[in-house]
């Protein structure tokens, strides 16, 4: 059909290359951030525990996700729970990316980042916010984690809090293991948990 040829010829006469779109996308991300409509910015970073998705609101880092969680699914969940105004916009994640880099290189023992805790509420949030008190290279039991949050008997709830940590690695739920030494559940899988504990033991 003539019209199919024309549609094809028009598409060629008005090209739109991946390079064009990268450049325009970068402009859009900067303008959206400037106008205060970039509700969630994200990027991925390569690490020894696989690619990590980092997402931040204007308040701070809101989500760290392992590849096993499905990054697309995580972004869809963020669209539902926070806002669909989400762009791949690395600039906002520069500081988290740098600190993670330093951590995995063994040059950083704690994170100094603004965090947005909105994905975790109530007792879970209380448990998670106390986890940085378990120092680099240390481990604690789920019972100890419950005690840090002020409810020593809420062991099961503390375990759930760790298993649903929206900010793994940065909020060190990997340092919480069973009292008998078994490594326990982890969002990124037991191998990732072991890798982090080995890194910190070195």
């Amino acid at each position, binding site marked *: *059909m*003539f*019209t199919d*040829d*024309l*549609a094809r*010829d*028009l*598409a*060629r*006469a*008005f*090209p*739109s290359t991946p390079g*064009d*779109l990268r450049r*325009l*996308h970068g*402009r*859009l991300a900067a*303008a*959206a951030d400037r*106008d205060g*409509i970039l509700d*969630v910015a*994200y990027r991925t970073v390569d690490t020894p525990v696989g690619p990590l998705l980092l997402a931040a609101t204007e308040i701070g880092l809101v989500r760290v996700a392992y590849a096993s969680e499905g990054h697309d*699914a995580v*972004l*869809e*969940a*963020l*669209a*539902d729970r926070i*806002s*669909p*105004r*989400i*762009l*791949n916009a690395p600039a906002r994640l520069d500081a988290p990316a740098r600190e993670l880099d330093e951590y995995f290189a063994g040059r950083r023992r704690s994170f100094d980042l603004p965090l947005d805790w909105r994905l975790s509420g109530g007792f879970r949030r209380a448990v998670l916010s106390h986890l940085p008190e378990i120092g680099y290279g240390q481990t604690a039991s789920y019972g100890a984690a419950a005690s840090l949050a002020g409810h020593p008997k809420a062991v099961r709830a503390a375990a759930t809090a760790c298993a649903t940590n929206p900010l793994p690695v940065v909020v060190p739920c990997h340092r919480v293991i069973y009292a008998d030494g078994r490594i326990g559940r982890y969002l990124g899988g037991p191998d990732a948990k072991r890798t982090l504990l080995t890194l910190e033991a070195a």
Partner: protein
Amino acid sequence: MTGKQPFEAIVAAHGTTVLRVCRAVLGPVNADDAWSDTFLSAMKAYSDLPEGANVEAWLVTIAHRKAIDITRAAARRPVPVAQTPDDGAVPATGSPGHSLDADLADAVARLPAKQKQAVAYHYLAGLPYAEIAAIVGGTADTVRRAAADGIANLRRVYPGAAGTRTKGEACVHG
């Protein structure tokens, strides 16, 4: 998951088409600004977009308004702009050394606005005539006629289209 997809997915799915449409309607110089204005406005309004809306038609609607804004702003600037003949009649541009793609782009640039919009929104964005009428005004029939006139003009001046015309006319009329 029932909510809206991340806006990033909207850019990934429609960024290419919107850029082509902006380039066809405005030319290469202003197309970048039109694309940026379109997606920034779309992102602002994204939360209000009804579920199940035709996202591409919505984006073309925004791009259409942005193109009008940019054209008006350019007209106010004291720089000479290319004249568009009212009848869309254009001298042939198939000079040696001039690529066929550039010839077609030139030919589209010289079309009257209504024809250019009808051709771009139908053949580049793939929108049905009724949808385009809702964007540019008029009826599906007037838009269909504008697109047909635009194509007739392009056929006259664009050698590439002339090359495929025989086959196409055989399909359409035969």
